[in-house]
């Protein structure tokens, strides 16, 4: 079998666990401890994970971070397992399933009565926003519990191999992967109770969360909840858009930078915002050919410096271009792209075929805020922030008392702002729990100034305008 694992990388070192073996459709597959099932299959060139339920279309993974559920398979007899967040284990039996998977033959294992606990703060999501909120609250004496679905925390920082922009005082120039480690270390030091591999199932009245942990169902009664659930990648409608080989940019990053597996040999990048440009560059660093970056707008969207890195490596960027269809039957074998006119209509005669085995979709993100909606928070569509976002106070509290948001789930921006918003929420929670102090109010002022700094300039215009549209002038409640 082929091996798509990266052995040498200019920035990253991949620490793989010991070699293990599992069964996929009766075939033995080699994996390394620490890989997810999806990553291990992909590393071995197995890209078709399942078949769609009505149209019987081949499916691979898409988001690779447990959000889209495109990668579900039957694992050890249990159907609908998200293989992109499930660690691979020795001797595991993994099977594809189609429309209706086989019902598990064994009686579900006994699970103990749901354990109920009373805690101060629950934070959902272990990225820069969630960790930052948890750290501040815990440092000031709160009993903080942080839940994350992934086995390791740090959110999307862990796959950011580039140096961060922003102020050198706010960790610019540091790579995301190092930032994640710093935050985790600080969280542990501050006494945050970290719950990796734990899924929050829902919000229930009076700030109660139902959580699925490795020990079964758990109920947390809290005094305050922070939703730092991040974002979901936007999907794009075009012919054959669900073929294995078509992945979200975040999915490509996860595979490549977290698990050290190349997504393919030749990648077509759709979208030229900073995500598309940065992931394009990271693909080159991993030794993958980026055949072209296409962008529907007349100009590329990201920073010129990011575009220049790609151009310097010989990658063409085609503006006013879109994808018409993906080619291939079981997986991507190419793409047809064409030019768009000023009315977004295809220009006849401009169609061209590109050879590629991966189409990477980087057409923006939208906030992942199901939980905030479950809690009954008032929402508003704010185009500038990527979609529906909760109405919030300056301290990032939603219209539901004690329910806060931070980071991309409050509106799409970038990691530095997410961390700062998390800190701000942390301060607000400390005030709520223990009353205010000079130290806390000073800190809040500093953080707010920091956020304002990050939103300056032409690239900050969108979030600046967006945040205004959904932030209440005065404190509610």
């Amino acid at each position, binding site marked *: 079998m082929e091996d798509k694992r990266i052995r*040498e*990388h*200019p*920035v990253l070192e991949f620490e793989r666990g010991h070699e293990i073996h599992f069964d996929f459709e009766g075939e033995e597959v080699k994996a390394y401890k620490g890989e997810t099932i999806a990553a291990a299959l992909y590393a071995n060139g197995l890209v078709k994970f399942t078949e769609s339920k009505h149209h019987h279309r081949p499916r691979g993974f898409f988001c690779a971070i447990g959000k889209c559920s495109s990668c579900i398979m039957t694992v050890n007899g249990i159907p609908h397992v998200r293989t992109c967040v499930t660690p691979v284990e020795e001797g595991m039996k993994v099977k594809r399933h189609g429309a209706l998977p086989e019902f598990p033959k064994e009686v579900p294992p006994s699970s103990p009565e749901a354990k109920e606990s009373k805690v101060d703060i629950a934070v959902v999501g272990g990225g820069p926003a969630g960790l930052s909120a948890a750290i501040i609250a815990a440092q000031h004496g709160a009993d903080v519990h942080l839940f994350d679905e992934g086995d390791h925390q740090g959110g999307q920082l862990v796959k950011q191999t*580039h*140096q*961060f*922009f*922003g*102020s*050198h005082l706010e960790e*610019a*120039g540091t*790579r995301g992967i190092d930032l994640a480690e710093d935050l985790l270390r600080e969280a542990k030091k501050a006494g945050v109770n970290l719950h990796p591999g734990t899924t929050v199932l829902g919000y229930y009245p009076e700030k109660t969360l139902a959580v699925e942990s490795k020990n079964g169902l758990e109920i947390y009664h809290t005094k305050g909840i922070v939703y730092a659930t991040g974002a979901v990648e936007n999907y794009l409608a075009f012919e054959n858009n669900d073929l294995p080989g078509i992945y979200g940019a975040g999915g490509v990053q996860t595979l490549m930078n977290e698990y050290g597996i190349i997504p393919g040999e030749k990648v077509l990048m759709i979208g030229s915002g900073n995500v598309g440009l940065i992931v394009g560059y990271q693909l*080159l*660093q991993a*030794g993958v050919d980026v055949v072209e970056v296409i962008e529907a707008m*007349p*100009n*590329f969207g990201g*920073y*010129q*410096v*990011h*575009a*220049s*890195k*790609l*151009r*310097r*490596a*010989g*990658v063409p*960027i085609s*503006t006013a271009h879109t994808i018409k269809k993906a080619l291939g039957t079981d997986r991507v074998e190419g793409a047809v792209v064409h030019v768009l006119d000023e009315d977004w209509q295809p220009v006849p005669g401009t169609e061209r075929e590109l050879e590629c085995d991966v189409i990477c979709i980087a057409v923006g993100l939208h906030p992942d805020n199901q939980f905030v909606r479950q809690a009954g928070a008032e929402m508003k569509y704010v185009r500038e922030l990527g979609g529906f976002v909760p109405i919030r106070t300056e301290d990032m509290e939603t219209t539901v008392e004690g329910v806060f948001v931070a980071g991309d789930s409050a509106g799409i921006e970038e990691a530095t702002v997410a961390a700062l918003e998390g800190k701000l929420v942390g301060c607000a929670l400390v005030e709520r729990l223990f009353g205010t102090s000079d130290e806390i109010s000073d800190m809040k002022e500093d953080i707010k100034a920091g956020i304002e*700094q*990050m*939103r*300056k*300039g*032409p*690239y*900050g215009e969108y979030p600046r305008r967006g945040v205004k549209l959904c932030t209440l002038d005065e404190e509610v409640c």
Partner: protein
Amino acid sequence: MTDYKETGILSLDDIKKPSEDRLKKGPVVVIECVENIPCDPCVAACPKDAISMDEITDIPSIDFDGCIGCALCVTECPGLAIFVVDCTSDPCTITVPYEYLPVPEKGEKVFALDREGKRVQVSKVVRVRSSGKTYGITLEVDRENIWKVRGLEVKR
């Protein structure tokens, strides 16, 4: 302003260049950063305070006379947009940021690339600096190519 937002390629008109007089005096920085993005590690990297900005979103303002061409900023710029040119030697040299594998060695012959990734000439590597995982590679280039060469490709 040229059409760099369509092409991703800056023209010489977009860039602040040191004067011919300054070029004769010693190595000097060229910063190819033309947008108001919130970023300032170059300011902190400069030991001579020759790079400054009032607001974090300002375009870096360069004091070419204060710059000593030390190239410390080359590896600190997250945008990989900083270069150092030296026209006092023959051939001239240019220091470019580099984050790929393999890393070229001192003395090695590599292809010098322009802003579109096209090969401009074969160049000898005269110095390899690193800060973290970002390298600053100094290449020998012909005088007429100092405003063209902005990257490199290892020949191996």
